[in-house]
């Protein structure tokens, strides 16, 4: 059950003076059960790409395959609801989608739309809220009373409660404090590794990509630039510089060490092992 893009083009407002081609000839196959980062400069088509995954946008050319469903350009796609049930999409600034009177009700909204009974929905909602770390005492509050970070968590719980097989997150940590962002990334990692949910994450934060993700997809001006695993991606320092990607601190540090004559293995990707490596060599 793959996620596959074949020769996908997407154009906004085609045949008008505002026509804008956001994706050009995307050929891409994403691994299931992994955590994949989608990166690229603003306007490179990241959001447009992920909105194809649950048929919010339909390709203007080519074909998208998600799980058992195929979305072909120019053909009416009828299984929208089934697809959206299996692919949960968390939007940028997801806190703006909250609208129910209480936090719990808002989280129940998603599953109930997909035909889950109220009782069952409440049960799932409670579990989901616990997973994202919302305290029981906040369940009956209005979503508007919560802080920005908490609202975001509630919105994510609202998607998790749908029990998707694929979780797509569009810049989930934008605007959060550093600690809150770390916690949230930990959470996605846990969901991915423990519950076996495929996670796709659109992000600008290279530290997060390095620490939490398995694979990287790089977009530039609506085209696929590269797709590779994390290790290979961060090995190629020159490439990152050329693509205007700001490497994580540890990669920059390793690059400086290399320039000063200390070569470190490309397997070393976190502070602990780097410290051990340097200390080990120093002792010799």
């Amino acid at each position, binding site marked *: 059950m793959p996620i596959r893009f074949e020769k996908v083009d997407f154009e906004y407002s085609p045949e*008008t003076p505002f026509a804008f081609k956001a994706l050009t000839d995307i050929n891409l196959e994403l691994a299931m059960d992994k955590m994949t980062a989608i990166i690229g400069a603003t306007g490179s088509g990241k959001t447009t790409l992920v909105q194809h995954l649950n048929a919010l946008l339909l390709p203007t050319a080519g074909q998208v395959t998600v799980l058992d469903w195929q979305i072909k350009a120019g053909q009416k796609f009828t299984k929208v609801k089934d697809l959206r049930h299996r692919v949960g999409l968390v*939007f940028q600034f997801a806190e703006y989608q909250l609208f129910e009177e209480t936090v719990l009700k808002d989280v129940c909204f998603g599953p109930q739309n997909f035909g889950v009974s109220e009782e069952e929905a409440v049960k799932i909602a409670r579990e989901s809220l616990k997973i994202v770390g919302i305290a029981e005492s906040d369940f009956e509050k209005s979503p508007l009373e919560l802080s920005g970070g908490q609202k975001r968590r509630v919105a994510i719980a609202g998607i998790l409660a749908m029990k998707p097989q694929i979780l797509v997150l569009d810049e989930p940590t934008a605007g959060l404090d550093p600690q809150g962002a770390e916690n949230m990334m930990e959470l996605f990692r846990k969901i991915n590794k423990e519950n076996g949910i495929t996670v796709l994450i659109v992000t600008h934060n290279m530290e997060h990509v390095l620490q939490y993700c398995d694979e990287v997809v790089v977009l530039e001006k609506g085209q696929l630039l590269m797709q590779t695993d994390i290790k290979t991606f961060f090995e190629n320092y020159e490439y990152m510089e050329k693509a205007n990607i700001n490497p994580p601190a540890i990669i920059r540090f390793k690059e400086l060490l290399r320039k000063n004559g200390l070569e470190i293995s490309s397997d070393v990707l976190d502070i602990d092992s780097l410290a051990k490596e340097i200390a080990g060599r120093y002792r010799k």
Partner: protein
Amino acid sequence: MKNVTLGQYIPLDSFFHKLDPRAKICAMIAILIAVFIPAGFVGYGILAAVLIACILRAKLQFSFVIKAMKPMVMMMIFLTIINVFVIKTGNLLYTLGPVTIYDDALKQTAYIIIRLALMIMTTTLLTATTKPMDMTLGIEDLLKPFEKLGVPTHDIAMMIALALRFIPTLIDEAERILKAQASRGVDFENGSLKEKISAIMSLIVPMFVSCFQRADDLADAMEARGYVVGAKRVRYKQLKFGRGDYIVIIGANLLLALMIFLAYRGTI
């Protein structure tokens, strides 16, 4: 939702785009009056020819203007039906049981449809070639004389400008929330009444919340930059009348005079 054509600015470079908004507004008013003068089919023919020439000159595509007329199609059909049944003067053209059609009815209907089409052409020509901000500047200037009567022209213009400024933002926002809720399984098209209400609520509540928040932030941002309601303000962009502006105003008024002449001749 991006397909709203009525009142949309099309950034091009043409004679009409460069005109002073005040000239365009004045000319539009003159032409709208001309459209409502019963100058007969000859008059409408002349008006339509002039407007088509103007649309060509403004480098606008006809498909765009026709798209702008689409919302009016239902109204045109409705008017046709009413007219056919109500107007019973002139020569009898056709009888089918209780339905009788007279030639006056068809003529009246044709007049109304032509007028609507001409009106839309005129207003589209104005809105498609004038930036919303320039439009408000123009309106503000044209309202200047009423300031002496205590009309807060600047505040009105500012409100219009802000409202216009936020239309695209709010459309984007609505689209985003629509998509977010669709991802959560909301079906905005099908479903029972209860489901439809819940679907609409899931759009309206977040829109309200974000509108109020935006309004609050905007007010703070304006005050932070020293905006005071009712204070005297200078303007960065100065409007200037050029030769083209005089030509357009005089042209529009000559057209109006011609229509009045045709209508007058028609009555005697």
